[in-house]
């Protein structure tokens, strides 16, 4: 029962902070709310007994990626005057794609049957050893594919960042 209450508090916090990310005027505040949102999601992981996932989520997303994002936002000149005039076309495109995504999600939710919520019994599913064994046996191919993807991204960024000799 108490875990259910905790879940609802966490879930509502997640949604509220996610909404703040979208509606904050200042991009810095958006980033801050996003970090908070990541924390609540890490809380969900902890409740699912996936402590390793939770802490990695905090380290990677809140600790590294959001720092870089904050870094970029801080260096931007965010004065209103210097903002170039934008055409409304991208906004329409964004609304249409967002709406389509929502439609897909809703359809998926509708067609799938939701399992009854039961508080997970104490298990060591989320422990490091278990996650490690799973990654290197059952999910070896996706794991290696992801690393290839990362390497491709890294090489791509190096190529982009390298100055043109000509």
């Amino acid at each position, binding site marked *: 029962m108490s875990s259910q209450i905790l879940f609802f508090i966490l879930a509502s916090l997640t949604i509220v902070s996610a909404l703040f990310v979208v509606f904050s005027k*200042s991009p*810095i505040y958006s980033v*801050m709310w996003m*970090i908070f949102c990541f924390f609540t999601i890490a809380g969900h992981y902890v409740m699912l007994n996936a*402590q*390793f996932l939770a*802490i*990695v989520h*905090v*380290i990677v997303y*809140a*600790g*590294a990626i959001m*720092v*870089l994002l*904050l*870094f970029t936002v*801080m*260096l931007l000149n965010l004065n209103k005057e210097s903002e170039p005039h934008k055409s409304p076309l991208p906004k329409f495109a964004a609304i249409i794609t967002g709406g389509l995504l929502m439609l897909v999600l809703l359809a998926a939710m509708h067609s799938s049957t939701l399992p009854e919520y039961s508080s997970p019994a104490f298990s060591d599913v989320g*422990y*490091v*050893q278990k996650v490690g064994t799973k990654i290197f046996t059952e999910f070896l191919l996706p794991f290696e594919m992801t690393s290839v993807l990362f390497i491709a991204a890294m090489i791509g960024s190096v190529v982009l960042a390298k100055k043109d000799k000509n």
Partner: protein
Amino acid sequence: MSLLIFKSILILTLFLVSLGIAAYSTYAERKVAAFLQDRIGPDRAGPYGLLQPIADGTKMFLKEEIIPMFSDKWLFILGPSLFMVTALMTSAVIPWGRSIEIGGQVYSLQVADINVGILYILGIVSLGVYGIMIGGWSSNNKFALLGAIRASSQMISYELAMGMSVITVLLISNGSLSLNSIVESQGEGKLYGFINVSGINWNVFYQPVAFIIFLTCAFAECNRTPFDLPESESELIGGYHTEYSSMKLGLYLFAEYINMFISAAVISCLFFGGYNFPGIDYLGNHLPMNIVSLISVGVLFCKIFFFIFFFMWVRWTIPRFRYDQLMRLGWYVLMPLSIINVLITGALVTYFGN
């Protein structure tokens, strides 16, 4: 006594001890600096100047509080608070000593033995950079922003090598991420397989390279000299806390000393056997349990104090790095070195078994 009450008392004690050690670290810093420079340091407030931290703290509290006009007020206040909170949170997973027995019940001297202990520390430490960044940005000052940017890029760069050097320690320990089991694994077994003294099977004898990498990264994470570029007084007039005054500045300075205390504790736990000391088993068999526990706590604190002293000793020996040198050291030297170290250790562990 229920577990909850014991844990609450432990948390409160840790809180007070962290703050007390941080306060006296400021005094120790000045004393060590003075002694290394053939001076005697503060000696006016109380005997040997022992009341100096109280005088400094009172000064900080009584100073005028200034919030710059064009700063973002909420973020300006959030910055130091966040830095302090993250600094204080890390002490939760460190095993401070052997278990003690009160009224027939055995209590572990660790607030939370979570199975991702060391990752928890890395995660919280990586959050500490937000306090610096927010504080630096919201000051609306170019020097502060430069300091914040330096701090964040430095911390991100050195976290990687730090994590890599931790991995080698995990490889030769029981394979658990819990700090408690890492410490316990250093208390049992023989050193190099033949030196039969209990409690000296420390990781530093197996992983000296990882230790040096971790130590270097700890210096960088704590913004200590030779990596104190974020707050270099001579270039950035204090860096990210240029605009701060009164106790908000105090929180920043204080949290840095707490960080130093915690990193000294983590180094002791990972590489120097935590609360283990040579002959711990002999004493454990001949003395009451609680006395051995108290001795183990004392031993851990001796190690911590040595490392705090070492941090200061290095500060007054080595000059500051240049920024490109810092980045070169982090990415070109420490990072490949730690990866090679992981590979070699992994190969040896696979080949020889543990």
